């Protein structure tokens, strides 16, 4: 990814993040989170993680934030606008992120920096040897394309198959939990 695109997406992401805290209206905050996640998806795609970038948009900005907006609409939050902020939590928050940022900068100064390894025709076709000869992944790799979704699917259904099934059980439990939580309050 060119450097100016990295800065563009990072700026969009960070401005979105700051305005989540700065806006008083919860709807504006929710839309700022959407802006932040769109910038983040741009960064993911710039890192050649196309599948993760697309589900970031589909799941987070598409499903999760719309759910947030629905709940904000459901609750009547009129008194939010003329509420004064207390000074103590703001001071605590600023001190906390000050300490965190000092820690972050000192850790990053000590971390060995890495330039992005190449993903060109030569490395991709060399990687094709570890996959079966005529498979879709091997053919795409030999042509010099990165079959991102195929590789993720391959890893998911071989190496992480058990985790995927546990995740299915978790989603089922969450669904039942939500239904029983909303049922109890109507009785």
């Amino acid at each position: 990814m060119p450097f100016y695109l990295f800065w563009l997406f990072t700026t969009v992401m960070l401005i979105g993040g700051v305005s989540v805290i700065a806006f008083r209206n919860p709807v504006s905050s929710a839309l700022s989170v959407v802006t932040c996640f769109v910038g983040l998806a741009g960064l993911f795609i710039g890192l050649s993680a196309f599948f993760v970038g697309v589900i970031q948009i589909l799941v987070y900005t598409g499903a999760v934030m719309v759910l947030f907006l629905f709940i904000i609409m459901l609750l009547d939050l009129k008194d939010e606008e003329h509420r004064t902020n207390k000074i103590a939590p703001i001071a605590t928050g600023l001190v906390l992120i000050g300490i965190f940022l000092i820690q972050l900068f000192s850790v990053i100064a000590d971390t060995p920096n890495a330039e992005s390894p190449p993903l060109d025709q030569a490395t991709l076709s060399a990687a094709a040897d570890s996959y079966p000869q005529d498979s879709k992944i091997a053919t795409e790799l030999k042509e010099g394309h990165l079959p991102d979704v195929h590789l993720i699917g391959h890893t998911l259904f071989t190496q992480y198959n058990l985790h995927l099934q546990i995740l299915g059980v978790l989603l089922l439990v969450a669904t039942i939990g939500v239904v029983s939580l909303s049922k109890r309050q109507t009785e």
Partner: protein
Amino acid sequence: MASLNNYLLASGLLFAIGLAGVVIRRNIIIVFMCLELMLSAANLSLVAFSRFHPVNGLPDYSGQMLVFFVITVAAAEVAVGLAIIVALYRARQTIHTDELDTLKG
């Protein structure tokens, strides 16, 4: 080309913003959104490490698998959390953390 440390810095800044939001804001819904920001910041560093430390010439897909699982668990967490917030609002008529002090001694 952006280097690994650039991505880690961006991820750390986003995490700091989320942390500040959790501490500063009193509205439970905003606190919840800031939690999502912190999860996404962690995802960004996972994807950056997966790209910058290749296995066999390809990005390390175990890192992206973890991102996939984090996103799924976060979606389940949002569904349950928002159901709890709605139940809380029906019971107490408020979602401000200052006014929810039943457990305070």
